[in-house]
């Protein structure tokens, strides 16, 4: 049961044995060679999807095309229009100047580097705290799991603006109440504008619900208990069992969680701008005041970068886990 839930890919793989009775019930009496539509198709996927749509759906066909067209227009036009906006400048014709200006723009490099550093630190922190917790919740006690689920859901209840309001209040305690204690230095250090660690903490909390859920889903797909017990029986220590038996099976979930965190941090604006720091997203808004085309160009590039990153991660993770599943399901 748990295996069936794990992912659509797993369902696709394990659904294969259930198929023949389905097909038989749909077209029970016509021999294979005489089937009007399915006969010439050799792809099992095609006959599966034909069986999945037993009702005549001509209207459904047109409806689908209309829906896809509208969605395509709605989602592509802003991207194309942004490209046109940055490339076709009134009075200058087609030019790449919006893009070539980017690297020379003041503050670009510093803010981008800051965002990348924050992202790396956040991914490391959030994985470091959530992997042991998720594995422990999966392996052991009944009590831990519900507590963790509540704790990892709570950040969803507090919107980033509200979290920032609270964080700002806490940060003001430093100068107001703690200026004579050694703790004051900590308050100063976490707000260092070169690397504001307070943002890493805030982002880790904001990413936690998604990361925990991704890890939990990944863990559900593998039999952690058997893996760990097998590793322990072979003499591995707890950390080693975790690193070399459990984590390799979580590659997809880890990539997924890291990507979500990365995307969240690179695009984050609310907390950083309200606390007065200037990572990438805040810089884009400031730059837009003087040069709208530049900021649109940067926005477009950041989306393309995210897209490429995601595609790379899914092909990387997808291929590996597919071959893994192919081996185990047979």
């Amino acid at each position, binding site marked *: *049961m*748990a295996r069936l*839930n794990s992912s*659509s890919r797993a369902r696709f793989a394990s659904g294969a044995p259930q198929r023949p009775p389905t097909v038989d019930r749909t077209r029970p009496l016509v021999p294979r060679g005489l089937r009007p539509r399915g006969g010439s198709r050799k792809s099992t996927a*095609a006959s599966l999807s034909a*069986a999945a*749509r*037993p009702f005549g759906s001509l209207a459904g066909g047109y409806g*689908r095309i209309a*829906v896809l067209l509208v969605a395509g227009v*709605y*989602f592509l*036009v*802003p991207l194309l*229009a*942004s490209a046109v*906006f940055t490339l076709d400048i009134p009075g200058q014709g087609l030019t790449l100047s919006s893009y070539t200006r980017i690297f020379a723009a003041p503050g670009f490099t510093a803010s981008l580097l800051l965002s990348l550093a924050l992202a790396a630190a956040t991914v490391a*922190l959030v994985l470091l705290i959530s992997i*042991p*917790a998720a594995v*422990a*919740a999966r392996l*052991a*006690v009944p*009590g831990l799991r519900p507590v963790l689920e509540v*704790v990892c859901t709570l*950040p969803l*209840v*507090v*919107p*980033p*603006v509200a979290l920032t*309001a*609270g964080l*700002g*209040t*806490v940060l003001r*305690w430093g100068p107001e109440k703690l200026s004579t204690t050694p703790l004051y230095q900590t308050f100063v250090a976490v707000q260092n504008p070169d690397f504001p660690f*307070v943002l890493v*903490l805030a982002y*880790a*909390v904001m990413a936690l619900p998604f990361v925990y859920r991704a890890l939990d889903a990944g863990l559900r797909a593998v039999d952690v208990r058997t893996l760990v*017990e097998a590793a322990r029986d072979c003499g591995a220590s707890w950390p080693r069992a975790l690193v070399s038996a459990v984590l390799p099976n979580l590659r997809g979930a880890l990539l997924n969680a890291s990507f979500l965190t990365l995307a969240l941090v690179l*695009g*984050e*604006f*609310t907390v950083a*701008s309200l606390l007065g720091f200037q990572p990438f*997203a805040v810089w884009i*808004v400031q730059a837009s005041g003087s040069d*709208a085309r530049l900021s*649109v160009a*940067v*926005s*477009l590039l*950041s*989306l393309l970068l*995210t*897209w490429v990153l*995601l595609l790379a991660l899914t092909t990387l993770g997808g291929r590996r886990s597919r071959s893994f599943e192919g081996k185990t399901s047979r």
Partner: protein
Amino acid sequence: MTLLSSRARATAGTAPAAGAGGSPKPGRGRRRSWAWTAAAPLFLVVGLAFGLPALAMADGAFTVGDTYGLGNVTRSVEGAYRTALLGSVELSALTAAAGTLFGLLLAQAVVTSRSRALREAVLTASGVLANFGGVPLAFAFVATLGNAGVLTTRLGLDAHGWSLYGFWGLALTYLYFLVPLMVLTVAPALDGLRVQWREAARDCGASTWQYWRHIGVPVLLPTLLGGFVLLFGSAFAAYATAAAMVGSSVPLVTLQIADALSGNVLVGQENVALALSLDMVVVAALVMAVHLPLQRRSTRWLA
């Protein structure tokens, strides 16, 4: 699920690996403390970066002058703040409803399509676009439909009274990340509608309409409602898109909080900002209180 966990519990109780030959109780106790230790860093970080600010927020929201009181909270639901709260609720409800509808249609179109490539492309794109909120999204729409936007100038939209920097422009922009979010939410549920159910319904003589009326929609309903409140919550909490696009020309609670925090309005408004944040938390908590049970319910049939 319950079967699995009770079996897991049974193995945990008798697992020979845990307590080498001893009675099951000490083995379980040892394992329990190990598990809590493993989770301790997570609790520490959440306590520091989330628990402390949450307490500070509650403390500030109920502090009037030097004593505790409800002054800030009552002020936060009056006048301009009330308008902002209602504006946020209205915008979120509208965009969540539209996002649920369009997301469902798009997901259904993709899930029933024969092309695996289309399906993969749309789901991947949804994964990216659901995260494509905030500043870049605002600028993409400004470039498209803003005052000097490509479509605005080419189609002469401003002559028809179009303005991106208002309620409807914001709603149109929010849908850009809400629809993909709904697609991601509802696609697994649509996948989970078993072929056999359709066949059984057809064999019993049900029409397509009857199938959806009595099987499809009831099975999907928890997912749809859960998706709706999820979208509502996302739209309600959104700040960056609105801040980068409309400034504060549309009354929204997030913009009001930011204004009050940065002292744009009056000095000494911080506690009202904290009370407003508390209002937001209450709304978001209601959203989650509806969403989570629905999500659990929707996995019952679609597991």
